[in-house]
């Protein structure tokens, strides 16, 4: 009988079931070891994936490798300038930055009123209602860095608006509610902003996690903003998105270096420019998620290994207990190969059963966690899954380990001579 035939032989399995079923308690305890391992592995890596997905979703409205940079107060005297100067970014910096730093994909200068201390928000009037809202002067590229969801067939500011200094605005969903009736379509309507009439071209949906932005913000073209507020060449801050493969930390440093040079800021002055690097933050968080995945892989594999060793251990004891039986089998004509295959298959069979049950239990727990966290919007946990290749990988690892560990008791079983086995009482 060759070994392949043995594996597919119904009788072989009957022999294996016979000896496994003989000691049910031992079998169950053995199986639980590996089952626990694969269960831990599936649950942990699924949870890690869910966390990863959750973070992805939380950041989906921002370009992953974007940053904000704004001027602050200088703290180092430089080139004859005293400490405590407030540098001003200029619109011309955009071309300089693009020219010197090829990693920059988009750069959108922004001006705002009402956001930071000191400046007054815009007063917006529609019919007899008058309210104050923060107002931003924006380029159309801004939506490529920070996605704005626009309601009801509206749109964001485009390049035409920019070029023609159009008096158009995008209003927030709160602004929409406060100024317009519920059934009134704000698109195409005119509102008065600081006594200038603007046509509403879109309503943006407020997204959480956008920093200082609110659901009442009004966006108008950058050039229009400049004309109204007479800001000239000044820019409050830059939002910059680097290409996907760029190192955001390096890009941030380069941008600061270029800006320091332009604005005569001491190179060692770390306080003169403020920045918020979403890319770096995101990298740190996704690094955490990756670390979780890796950790769960290590922990899972280690637990599986411990379980499989447990199976080997139990089988070793079982072989010892069955010495006489195995001796009888050999006296009746079982070859060492047949005995070896039988013990090996017992090991592999137990491992597979344990693995499959563990996977099913793990998947069940993941489903329950998913159901329980679905309503929690502030908990970054979405769609915890374990990819099929990973599951197959885990299963085959277990079969390989089960076979390897089974070799020990199998070898032990045939290393005893039948005559000695028969003598054993």
């Amino acid at each position, binding site marked *: 009988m060759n070994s392949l035939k043995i594996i597919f032989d119904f*009788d072989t399995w009957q*022999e294996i079931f016979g000896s496994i*079923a003989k000691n049910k308690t031992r079998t169950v305890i053995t199986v639980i070891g590996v089952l626990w391992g694969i269960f831990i592995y599936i649950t942990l890596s699924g949870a890690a994936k869910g966390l990863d997905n959750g973070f992805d979703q939380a950041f989906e409205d921002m370009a992953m490798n974007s940053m904000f940079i704004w001027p602050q107060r200088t703290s180092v005297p430089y080139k004859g300038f005293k400490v405590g100067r407030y540098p001003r970014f200029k619109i011309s910096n955009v071309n300089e930055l693009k020219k010197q730093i090829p990693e920059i994909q988009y750069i959108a200068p922004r001006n705002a009123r009402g956001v930071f201390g000191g400046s007054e928000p815009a007063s917006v009037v529609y019919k007899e209602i008058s309210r104050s809202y923060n107002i931003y002067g924006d380029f159309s590229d801004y939506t490529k860095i920070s996605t704005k969801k626009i309601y009801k067939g509206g749109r964001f500011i485009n390049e035409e608006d920019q070029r023609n200094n159009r008096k158009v605005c995008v209003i927030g969903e709160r602004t929409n509610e406060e100024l317009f009736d519920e059934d009134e379509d704000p698109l195409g309507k005119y509102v008065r902003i600081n006594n200038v009439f603007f046509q509403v071209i879109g309503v943006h949906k407020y997204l959480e996690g956008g920093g200082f932005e609110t659901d009442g913000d009004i966006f108008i073209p950058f050039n229009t903003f400049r004309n109204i507020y007479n800001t000239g060449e000044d820019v409050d801050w830059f939002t910059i998105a680097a290409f996907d493969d760029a190192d955001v930390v390096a890009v941030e440093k380069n941008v600061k270096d270029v800006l320091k040079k332009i604005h005569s800021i001491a190179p060692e002055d770390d306080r003169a420019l403020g920045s918020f690097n979403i890319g770096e933050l995101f990298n740190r968080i996704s690094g955490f998620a990756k670390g979780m995945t890796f950790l769960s892989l290590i922990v899972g594999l280690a637990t599986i290994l411990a379980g499989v060793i447990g199976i080997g251990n139990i089988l070793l004891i079982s072989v010892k207990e069955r010495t006489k*039986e195995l001796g*009888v089998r050999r006296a*009746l004509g079982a070859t*060492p190969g047949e005995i070896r295959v039988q013990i090996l298959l017992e090991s592999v069979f137990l491992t597979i059963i344990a693995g499959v049950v563990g996977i099913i239990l793990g998947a069940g727990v993941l489903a329950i966690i998913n159901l329980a966290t679905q309503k929690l919007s502030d908990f970054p946990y979405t769609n915890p899954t374990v990819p099929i290749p990973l599951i197959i990988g885990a299963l085959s690892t277990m079969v390989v380990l089960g076979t390897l560990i089974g070799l020990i008791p199998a070898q032990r079983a045939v290393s005893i001579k*039948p005559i000695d086995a028969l003598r054993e009482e």
Partner: protein
Amino acid sequence: MISIKDLHKSYKMGDNSLHVLKGIDLDIDEGELVAIMGSSGSGKSTLLNILGMLDLADEGKYILDNVLIEGLNETTAANYRNQFLGFVFQSFNLINYKNALENVALPLYYQGFGRKIRQTKALEYLEKVGLKDWATHLPSELSGGQKQRVAIARAMASQPKVLLADEPTGALDSKTSNEVMSLIQQINHEGKTILVVTHELDIAHMCKRIVTLKDGVIVEDQKVDQVIVESHV
């Protein structure tokens, strides 16, 4: 059927070597029923183990059914055992989680027979030993005599050339001993060659020939008038 010449066997016990078989010559024809007698330590079990290919001789020739048995490794020995030999042990050695039928069918499994054939044959041999009705019983539900009869059925199921019985009645009372010996006589009567190792004289006299061993050599080899045991089965 069996021919052995100048068989030697010694066991190493630490620094000492224990010479158990010191040159055994023995010829057994087909259809014989031979008792091998001797006190413990005489080497009779060692001889039986070598005949059963469970152990290897150090020196000498062993011819079984015109086949010279030599250069045995575990696998060829297993195949020879499976083809040529049936074993009956003193302690029955049934597999305790298999019922009588499955026990009898086990050597057929290792001979590579299909499931159906194994079942039919095993049942046939169980019927022969009078235990057809006990086919689905586990060994723990059988009496000693019944266990030994199942073991004999198992030994016969593979249709061996030679049946080797090591103290088959050693664990049985005299009544069941007689039953078992009656069965052995009956099988021998049908033409099977059988060797029985025993240290009981009355059991030996139920055979046709008694070979007596002492200190590793044959001291006596005589044909006897067989005491036929009445079958009580």
